[in-house]
C-alpha cells in the first residue's frame, strides 16, 4: 500500500504562549516546535499498516516554513517513514487551512496515494479541516475522527471506527481514501538514536510554494489573545462532607448559575 502521511510542526504543548508584536498571532520566538500530537498518531498508524502489509511505503509530506518543517519531516523519517516531501511556506502569517490543503494536495496528487493519513486536527489552530480539503482536491472520499484503522486484505477495504457524539461508529471504505485520524492502535513509538542520526542525512524533496494556492479563499488573523491568568479555584471550606456539598450546590446555583 502506498501511504502518504501529512505532518505539521506545532509548538510543544507545555510551551508558554506569547503574543506577537502586532497582536495577531503567536510569537514563534523561542518556541520549540514538535510533530503535532494527532499527526504523531497518524505516523504511527501509517507505520503499523506498512508493517502489516509487505511492500508498503510511507511518504511524509509537510507544508511550512524553515527550519521547523524540515525538522518534523526528519523526525518522521527517524520514526520509519521512507520518504519526505517539504512544501516550503512563504514568510509571514500561516496560511489558512484551505490554502494549506491546496499546498499539500499539489505534490500528493503526483505521488502514488492509496491512503492519505492526517491527524484529525493540529494542536495549534485546531481547525481540523485539511483532511476534507485534501479529499475534495484529490477527488477521493475522506472520513475524520477515525480510530482503530485496519486494512482488510481479502476485501481490499479499509475498516475502522469513528468516534462521534453518539458513540463509536463502525465504517468501511475503499481505497484511495483520506483519513483524519484520532487514534492509532498503539501509542506513538519514539525514534531510536541511530535512526535519528541517519535521518539527518536523508534527502528531503523540496517543492516550491505556488502563490495561487492561497489567492482565494482565505481568512486573515486579526487578533491573538491570551486569557487573563486563572487565579486558581475558590476553595470551599467545610467541616463535614454534607456541608461541602451544600455549599458547592449553592455557589453553582446562585453565583455560577450552571446548576440544572
Amino acid at each position, binding site marked *: 500500500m502506498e501511504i502518504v502521511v501529512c505532518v505539521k510542526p506545532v509548538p510543544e504543548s507545555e510551551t508558554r504562549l506569547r503574543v506577537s508584536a502586532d497582536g495577531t498571532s503567536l510569537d514563534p520566538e523561542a518556541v520549540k516546535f514538535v510533530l503535532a500530537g494527532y499527526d504523531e498518531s497518524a505516523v504511527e498508524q501509517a507505520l503499523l499498516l506498512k508493517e502489516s502489509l509487505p511492500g508498503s511505503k510511507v511518504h511524509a509530506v509537510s507544508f511550512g516554513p524553515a527550519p521547523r518543517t524540515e525538522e518534523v519531516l526528519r523526525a518522521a523519517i527517524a520514526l520509519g517513514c521512507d520518504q519526505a516531501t517539504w512544501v516550503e511556506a512563504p514568510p509571514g502569517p500561516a496560511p489558512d487551512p484551505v490554502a494549506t490543503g491546496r499546498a499539500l494536495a499539489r505534490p500528493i496528487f503526483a505521488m502514488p496515494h492509496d491512503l492519505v493519513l492526517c491527524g484529525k486536527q493540529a494542536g495549534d489552530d485546531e481547525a481540523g479541516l485539511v483532511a476534507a480539503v485534501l479529499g475534495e482536491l484529490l477527488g477521493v472520499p475522506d472520513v475524520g475522527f477515525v480510530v482503530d484503522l485496519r486494512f482488510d486484505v481479502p476485501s481490499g477495504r479499509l475498516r475502522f471506527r469513528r468516534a*462521534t457524539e453518539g458513540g463509536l461508529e463502525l465504517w468501511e471504505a475503499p481505497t484511495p481514501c483520506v483519513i483524519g485520524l484520532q487514534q492509532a492502535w498503539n501509542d506513538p513509538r519514539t525514534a531510536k538514536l541511530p535512526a535519528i542520526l541517519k535521518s539527518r542525512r536523508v534527502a528531503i524533496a523540496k517543492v516550491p510554494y505556488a502563490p495561487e494556492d492561497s489567492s482565494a479563499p482565505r481568512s486573515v488573523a486579526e487578533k491573538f489573545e491570551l486569557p487573563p491568568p486563572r487565579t486558581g479555584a475558590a476553595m470551599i471550606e467545610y467541616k463535614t462532607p454534607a456541608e461541602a456539598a451544600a455549599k458547592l450546590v449553592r455557589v453553582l446555583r446562585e453565583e455560577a448559575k450552571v446548576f440544572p
Partner: protein
Amino acid sequence: MTPTVLVVGESSGGRLAGASLEAAGTARRLAAGDGEVVGFLAGAGTGAAAAEFARYGVGRVRVVDDARFDAAPAAATAHAAAAAADAVGAKWVVLAGTTFGRDLLGRLATRWNAAAASGVTEVAGDAEGLTVRRPVFGGRATETRRLVGDRAAVALRPHAFPSPAEVPVALAIEAVGAPDIPAALFGPKRTAVETAGAGSGPGLADAAIVVSGGRGLRAPENFRLIDELAASLGAAVGASRAVTDAGWRPASLQVGQTGRAVSPQLYIAVGISGAIQHLVGMVSSRVIVAINSDASAPIFKVADYGIAGDLFEIVPALTAEVRRVRGI
C-alpha cells in the same frame, strides 16, 4: 442588504441535533433585517427535522430526501449543501461544529470556494463578511479571524451559542433531488453504531454538564460514584486517560489531548490531578469544579471552585444534595 444564510441541519431519528438549533438561532441573528435563513437537510425521512426548523423560525427548508446520505460520509452531504447554497443564493453557511459538521466544513469550503472557520464561539457579520472568535491551543488562547471574500462558512462550537427560543413559522419544504455527486463519495459506509457504555445519558460532546473521574477513584468498581453523580445532574460521564488506559471505561469516554475535547457549561473533575494532557481537553469549559484529595494538585489552578478532600465522602454527599435540591 443583509444576505441569505444557509443553515445545514444534522438529524437522527427525526430529531434535529441540539447543536443544529444553536446554528439556526445564530443564522437568524446573522440574517436579521432583510436577510433570509434557509434550512438544509439531506437523508431519508427528514420531514420531522424540517418541522423542527420551522418551530425555531426557519420556515424555508431545502430537503434532499435520499437514504444514500444516511450511511455516507459528510463529504457527500457537503456536495449537496454546496449545491443548495448556490441554488438559494446564500452568502454564508452556518452549521453545528459536531464531528459531522467539521468533516462537512472543509469539503464545503473547498467546493463552494468559501472562507471557513471551525470551532467558532462568537460570530458577527457585516457588509464585507464575517468576523469570528475561536479558541486555539487547547483553549489556552483565542484568535479573532476575518473571513474575507464573497462567501464564508462557519462551524459553531456546540454549547457556545444559546439555544434559540421557539418562534414557530409556517413550514415550506423545497424537496429537490441530489445533485450530481461523484460515486466515490458514497464509497465509505457506516455499517453499525456501538453506543458508548452509559446508554441513556447525553453524549459526551453534546452534554451541558460533564462529570469526569480519574485515577483517584482507585478501582473500576468505584467509578459508579461518577455514574451516580452524573445521573443526578443529567450529565455525561467522562474519564481521564489513566482510567481509559486501565480499561475501567471505554476509550470513547476519554477527555483530553488524545481523546475528546469538551466545552460544557459545567465540568466536574473528580480524582483527576490535572495533567496538561487532560487540561487541554476541558479547559475551555465555562465553569470547572475540582474535587481532589491533594490540595496542591494542578487541577485546582484551572478550576473555578475546588473541594480538597476525600472523594469517597464528598461525592456521595454531593449526589445526595443534588438529588434533594432537584427533587429526585
